[in-house]
């Protein structure tokens, strides 16, 4: 059992708040991700957990045992660095064995464990190479092997895939997640890549300006963003600003936009009269020739821009004073300037109180 709790953790550099977390619990065997733009404090938080940065205040507990003040080498955590931080003067074997030799384990045990770790990351046979003789992807796997060979209580990942090319990155995401599930080591991952976070994590904490804005599973974060920042940062959203004018018993509410459009939305915990933003994903807006459909949440807009992406078409549609982004299957393509009908799926319209 390895449960990590962060309590009232604070760190600032001058006026810049790098980390300000009231309470966060990371569960046993969980793959937990801190996601945020650069400068959001996610890396600072990870480095505080690793022990490289001393927090100004607060405490970290691993299974109720406080660890702030414990030097990094005594924390039983292993980290995979963004630059991999492989030691250039050591072979792959020596790099992976480094931590075990410091523990003065018997030679045979070290050999066995290093070989096992290298097999797990599919690098058997490259033991005698030097890091500079390996490709980026192989170096990344050495860094992973060097961490898992320690059999740590916690695995820490600091943007470990950001130096790989896009195709490789996608493949490694799955590999990392599979490996983590196989080993069952509680893992904390830091990234600014939302797609990576959605694929790899059990739960995600979205950070901005040192604070955690929302914690949830990838679906919760994507489908039910609790703030405009998240709706905008994760994926693409179109926004319509307005006021809640009605709330019914079935869990729907009606939002009247600043320019008078009435849109039915799922209501969440919002009250009548609140000023709110409506956020909707491009894939949940349907487009069709005008007058083909009518009813609730059907509006008429005009195509402003078209981007044909092969597997889909991206439209920017003007609706009153709002610009709505739409993703549609490319079975038919509307042209710029064409009037079209729009339908907002009420179950996928998210309202965020302002």
């Amino acid at each position, binding site marked *: 059992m390895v449960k990590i709790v962060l309590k009232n953790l604070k760190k600032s550099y001058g006026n810049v708040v790098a980390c300000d977390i009231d309470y966060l619990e990371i569960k046993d065997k969980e793959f937990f991700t801190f996601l945020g733009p650069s400068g959001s404090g996610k890396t600072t938080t990870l480095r505080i957990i*690793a022990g*490289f940065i001393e927090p100004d205040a607060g405490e970290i507990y691993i299974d109720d045992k406080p660890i702030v003040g414990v*030097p*990094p*080498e005594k924390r039983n*955590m*292993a*980290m995979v*660095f*963004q*630059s991999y*931080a*492989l*030691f*250039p*003067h050591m072979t792959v074997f020596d790099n992976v064995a*480094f*931590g075990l030799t*410091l*523990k003065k384990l018997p030679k045979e045990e070290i050999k066995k464990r290093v070989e096992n770790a290298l097999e797990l990351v599919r690098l058997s046979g490259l033991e005698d190479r030097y890091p500079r003789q390996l490709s980026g992807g192989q170096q990344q796997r050495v860094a992973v092997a*060097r961490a898992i060979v*320690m059999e740590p209580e916690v695995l820490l990942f600091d943007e470990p895939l950001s130096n790989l090319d896009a195709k490789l990155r996608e493949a490694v995401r799955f590999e990392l997640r599979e490996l983590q599930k196989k080993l069952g080591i509680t893992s904390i991952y830091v990234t600014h890549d939302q797609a990576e976070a959605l694929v790899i994590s059990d739960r995600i904490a979205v950070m901005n300006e040192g604070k955690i804005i929302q914690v949830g599973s990838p679906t919760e974060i994507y489908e039910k963003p609790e703030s405009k920042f998240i709706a905008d940062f994760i994926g693409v959203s179109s926004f319509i600003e307005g006021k809640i004018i009605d709330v019914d018993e079935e869990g729907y509410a009606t939002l009247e936009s600043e320019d008078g459009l009435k849109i039915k939305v799922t209501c969440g915990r919002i009250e009548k009269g609140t000023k709110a933003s409506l956020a909707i994903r491009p894939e949940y807006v349907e487009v069709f020739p005008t007058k083909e459909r009518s009813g609730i949440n059907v509006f008429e807009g005009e195509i402003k821009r078209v981007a044909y992406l092969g597997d889909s078409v991206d439209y920017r549609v003007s609706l009153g004073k709002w610009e709505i982004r739409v993703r549609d299957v490319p079975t038919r393509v509307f042209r710029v300037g064409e009037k079209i009908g729009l339908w907002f799926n009420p179950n996928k319209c998210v309202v965020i109180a302002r």
Partner: protein
Amino acid sequence: MKKHWILSPKGLGNIFIAAILLFYVLFPMVVVVFWSVAEKWFPEHWWAPEKIGLSWFKALFKLVDVQLSFIQTFTIAPIVVALTALISIPAGYVFGTKSFPGKRLLENIFLIPLVVPAIATGISILSVYTAWGLRNTYWGVILAHMIGATPYMLRCVSAAFEGIDPAWEEAARNLGATRWQVIWKILVPNIIPGILAGAIFAFSWSINEFVLTLLVGFPTVTTLAVKVYQYIGGYYITPNAAAAVSIFLTLPSIPIVLAMEKYVKAEYVAGVAR
């Protein structure tokens, strides 16, 4: 059948250029070796000696002043290397790992000794050294050699420190290394090649330094480079002896070149040239 590329006009041109360059670099060496072993010349021409032998070397080794030069040259050089390393390691650490205002300027100031002609430096330090009683002393020559050797050493060592990824330390500590273990097992092994490269430069600088050695050291300290000049120039006019002394100077270069091949990475040399 296709002709071999070497036989094409371009290949022949390349070979021609390479041959000229090789001749240009190696011919003086050949002449020096030739002269140092030429015991007797034909009276009618200059280019082939009548008798070849090691008598010049034997004669030189019997001369006390040459023996002394030999000892002086190869004791001064290691001391110069050690002292420049002593200065350059902490300075290189700061230049290679920290950033501060004026760093660029300071780095360039350290290069000035390489730009100023030795004779100009010599004239200015001569009066200072005389005032301080360093003229005609061992330590005076060592200090004079360090002026030129330090920039090379410093560049090499800074380049080595610059090559260190701060994440190495974190990675090592994360894997259980203490601060001391980080220094011994991670930092030192990655700095040594830089220091070694600097040492090679500083060593060859010291044994080759001529102008300052002559100005500061003469007549008490005469390294081999000065000795060659004595034999060739104003004193005895004996080119054969001069050639033999030059061989003494050249011999240590062979292991140095081999060591460079093995230890010096291109980036350290580039660091010097930068």
